[in-house]
């Protein structure tokens, strides 16, 4: 049998009783105590009064504040790329499929080894024929020309309509609008990373403009060549305070496959390593988005240096190093 509850014990539970967070047994013990204790019944009434007093302290955000928040969010979302899932790799999917069934789990190791052997064999067989593009000179030429139409004749001949790329030389000063337009075009050339990098380099030396900024942001977000992305970050230094640029840098920091690019991104986002080393601390005006990015980085970053950088900055800002 339970011992009787003391007054102090009963009163300590009043608020939990009010919230309905006690078990049936706990409630019963309090009710039993209250039945026989007039003082505690009085204390319970006063507790209820104070408890209710807290209700009046709640503040509802104004309608205008909510509207402003929604408008700001809408504007910021426009700058965001569409959500993209981190798809598990084929090996994770393969291993997951094997793990899912107990019977398959038993054969996971031998099947895995067999799969690796088969993959190696297939790669050795296929790789040379795929990689030796000189065996298919026509394919290389196709990059220069484009077949628009094919028309067979009754005499066995075939007529092909080909779009040909003709070369011409354009020269001018770096400020020439035509040169500028061609450089912007070349910076997005899908076929030649060297051309893209050189074009960005030349654009970076020009006075900042929104077209240049957009091209640099595009390169940072989408170029598959790390050298080009590094060149883009270099050029974005003059735009580092702009929200769209910060958003692109945050995305790069979290998702770029190249640690060197991520290092440059964190430098530009947070004001650089020099500030931390000087003892002054990082730029304390870092916005919440950057702090959130750094916290997220702590969770997913494999590179020890980047994790350490991020941790030092967060600690200097008295921000948690965790994400929730």
């Amino acid at each position, binding site marked *: 049998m339970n011992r009787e509850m003391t007054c102090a014990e009963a*009163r300590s539970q009043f608020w939990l009783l009010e919230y309905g967070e006690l078990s049936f047994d706990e409630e019963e013990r309090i009710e039993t105590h209250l039945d026989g204790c007039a003082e505690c019944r009085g204390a319970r009434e006063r507790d209820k009064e*104070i408890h209710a007093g807290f209700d009046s302290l709640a503040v509802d955000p104004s309608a*205008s504040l909510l509207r*402003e928040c929604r408008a700001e969010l809408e504007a910021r979302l426009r700058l965001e790329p569409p959500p993209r899932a981190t798809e598990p790799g084929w090996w994770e999917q393969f291993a997951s499929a094997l793990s899912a069934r107990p019977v398959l789990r038993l054969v996971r190791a031998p099947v895995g080894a067999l799969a690796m052997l088969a993959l190696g064999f297939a790669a050795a067989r296929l790789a040379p024929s795929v990689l030796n593009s000189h065996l298919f000179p026509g394919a290389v030429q196709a990059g220069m020309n484009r077949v628009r139409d094919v028309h067979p004749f009754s005499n066995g001949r075939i007529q092909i309509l080909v779009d040909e790329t003709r070369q011409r030389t354009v020269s001018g000063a770096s400020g020439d609008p035509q040169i500028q337009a061609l450089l912007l075009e070349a910076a997005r050339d899908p076929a030649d990373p060297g051309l893209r990098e050189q074009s960005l380099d030349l654009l970076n030396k020009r006075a900042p403009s929104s077209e240049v900024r957009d091209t640099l942001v595009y390169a940072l977000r989408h170029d598959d060549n790390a050298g080009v992305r590094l060149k883009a970050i270099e050029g974005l230094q003059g735009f580092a305070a702009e929200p769209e640029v910060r958003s692109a840098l945050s995305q790069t920091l979290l998702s770029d496959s190249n640690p060197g690019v991520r290092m440059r991104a964190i430098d530009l986002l947070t004001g650089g390593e020099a500030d931390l080393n000087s003892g002054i601390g990082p730029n304390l005006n870092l916005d919440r988005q950057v702090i959130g990015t750094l916290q997220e980085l702590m969770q997913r970053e494999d590179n020890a240096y980047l994790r350490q950088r991020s941790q030092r900055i967060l600690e200097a800002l008295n921000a948690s190093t965790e*994400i929730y």
Partner: protein
Amino acid sequence: MALHAGLQTDETTLIRAAQQGDRDAFEQLVRAYDHSVLRLAMNLLRSPEDARDVYQEAFLRVYRNLANFRFDCSFHTWLYRIVTNLCLDHIRRKKVRREEATVVETGESSLDRLDTVAEQRADTDPERRLFSGQLRMRIKEVLAGLTPRERMVFELRHYHGLRLRRIGEILGASEEAAKNCLFRATQKMRAALVDFK
């Protein structure tokens, strides 16, 4: 129950559409929860600017990570987990900077959250008014004295009506831990307000 199941299905449909990049679906999700998110941030941080920051950051994080949301928990729990932890970070930083203040700016003008007690208890009796004023002051001290986690649990239970089980899920703790936290918070408040009984 059927209604709840229907709403859940609708929400699941919205989430799946948003995961595919449907901005309208995402906006509907935001609209379903953003008022309570802003209210939570406002009450905990007592500053519209900080609340606005939390609002933006929370929904941007949701947007960026939505594609990886696997329905391991409810969307509400996931969202609140993000919001509460952003708020906890804010509170901790504020405490360090000694910027703690109980003044709430409502957007239009500054308002002391605790002054509303007096309005609610409009009393012509001077003695009673004095009592209310003292109670207000004491409540201010009590709330400021709670740890960030205690304040969070108290806020979620008292003002948002969430059960301790859900609060535990949101904070990544057990129901028992949330209960202990709430117990500590209420004990501190009872102890501080003992003179008013």
